[in-house]
């Protein structure tokens, strides 16, 4: 019997799609499997072991870089989310006013410039400030990360605000709530899921950054990704696989949370 004709079917599409999904996960699977390899060679399987996780954990450079990454990502994510929330409040639920389009373009500007160009620009700019001020701390990295995290944090917050009902705030105003009280008791609780989503996106984006960090960091300011890049360039050991596995796990957890939160919202 002939298969029923489906108007949605296209010849070969399902095969290509399945191949894509398979190929998307194959390298990641190989990477994770070899993190548990007993042998120090990255090609032969020498039995299951956790030795590379232990090695990474006791490597002071890895521990330092991880803390630095977390410190930068959490500071940048928090500052970016606060700034993005304020900006979103200022750019939504209003009639068009002069400068509104400019604000949109400006907030999204970091997304449109290649990372390498931003990296170079900050290298030049911060080099001058370092000479003038003598300060060489983590502040530069935090500032750079905050700037490129703002558009990512802004997106979900703005989306949430645009779908929000104005009548509740009007009701609060009718009941003599001050603008601040109306914001704190009505707008903010409704906006909260968007803010959390923005915070998580910003955190992941900052944690993943390689290029801008590579150009902005001073000596001894490696974050986990730039440390790994250095290791990979020097030749590979399963220790990098172990670090990657932990890193992957962290990202997957955050993304899963984000995905299900945004789905529940719909």
């Amino acid at each position: 019997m002939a298969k029923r004709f489906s108007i949605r079917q296209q010849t070969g599409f399902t095969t290509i799609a399945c191949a894509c999904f398979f190929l998307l996960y194959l390298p990641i699977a190989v990477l994770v499997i070899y993190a548990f390899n007993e042998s120090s060679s990255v090609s032969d399987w020498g039995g299951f072991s956790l030795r590379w996780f232990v090695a990474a954990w006791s490597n002071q450079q890895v521990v330092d870089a991880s803390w630095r990454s977390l410190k930068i990502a959490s500071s940048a994510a928090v500052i970016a989310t606060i700034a993005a929330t304020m900006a979103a409040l200022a750019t939504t639920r209003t009639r068009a006013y002069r400068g509104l389009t400019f604000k949109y373009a400006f907030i999204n500007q970091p997304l449109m410039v290649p990372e390498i160009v931003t990296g170079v620009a900050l290298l030049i700019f911060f080099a001058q400030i370092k000479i003038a001020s003598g300060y060489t701390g983590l502040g530069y990295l935090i500032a750079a990360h905050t700037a490129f995290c703002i558009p990512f944090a802004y997106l979900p917050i703005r989306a949430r605000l645009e779908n929000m009902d104005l009548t509740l705030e009007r009701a609060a105003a009718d009941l003599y709530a001050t603008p601040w009280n109306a914001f704190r008791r009505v707008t903010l609780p409704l906006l909260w899921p968007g803010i959390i989503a923005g915070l998580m996106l910003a955190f992941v984006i900052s944690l993943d950054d390689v290029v801008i960090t590579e150009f902005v960091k001073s000596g001894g300011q490696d974050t986990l990704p730039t440390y790994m890049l250095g290791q990979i360039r020097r030749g590979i050991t399963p220790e990098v696989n172990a670090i990657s596995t932990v890193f992957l796990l962290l990202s997957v957890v955050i993304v899963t949370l984000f995905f299900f939160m945004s789905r529940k919202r719909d």
Partner: protein
Amino acid sequence: MATAAEIEKQAEAREVRNRWLLSAPALIIILLAASGPLLIVLLYSFLTPGPYGDVEWKFSTEGWVSVFLERDIFDDTLSFASAHLTIFWRSLRLAIMATVATLIFGFPTAYFIATRSERTRDIWLFLITIPFWTNLLIRTFAVLQVIRNEGIINTGLIKLGIIDQPIQMLYTDFAIMVGMVYVYLPLMVLPLYASMEKLDFRLVEAGYDLYASRWQVLKRIIFPLVRPGVVAGSILVFIPAIGAYVTPSVLGGGKNMMFANLIELQFGQGRNWPLGAALSITVMAIVMVALLVYVRNTSSSEVRHG
């Protein structure tokens, strides 16, 4: 005495001022740590390189000249900088090839997701989103482990007796392209899916009723309808691909440089900051052209479809 209209006008002015104040922190951070420094890059491209890196504050167009030309050290004659041109050509070619390849693989994948049932669609979408948000360096490193000489592809082929020497894939242009296709595929699939999700299958059905073949339906009905997604996906892949830094550094080795590696070189061993700045502006100009094409494309298609 103020009239009602004046009071209203004042209230409106206050409102606009408050909105500027509220958006000020975001705008200032971006101005200081993203947009503003871009202007300094432009300035630096017109200065003289300093002996130990950085610049001397003397006007010079040498940075821009050496983007395309090189000066003979003996007689000062200019000729085309063939090393630079090779790198430009490689960057452009690999970026375009990666865009086309992600489209070839991404189109069927997005179509597959869009034609699933409501319930399973989210799961497939989730499977595409996960790699999108995982670290780009880790994904590039994963590709490296698969394609290197001792990786599973080569060892597998040797064990099967198909080849007896490993095929050198790592540290070639091919490796860079495979890596870019791998890391940027979700950037193609997501916008494609967004426009396919809205696809009206009654139009497809009408096509079949009029005796169109599957290929004709795909070419004449589906493809024109999802064109905005195709353009958006291509732009989203092309822009990071032309400025790619991590993929060529990890998979291309030291020899197969792209734009970003050439720029990095000028700020490191090359000690030619003005040239590095001029190269950065060049990459940005290419990206701006791509964005303009995108904007013109989307606005004209909106007009056409009403």
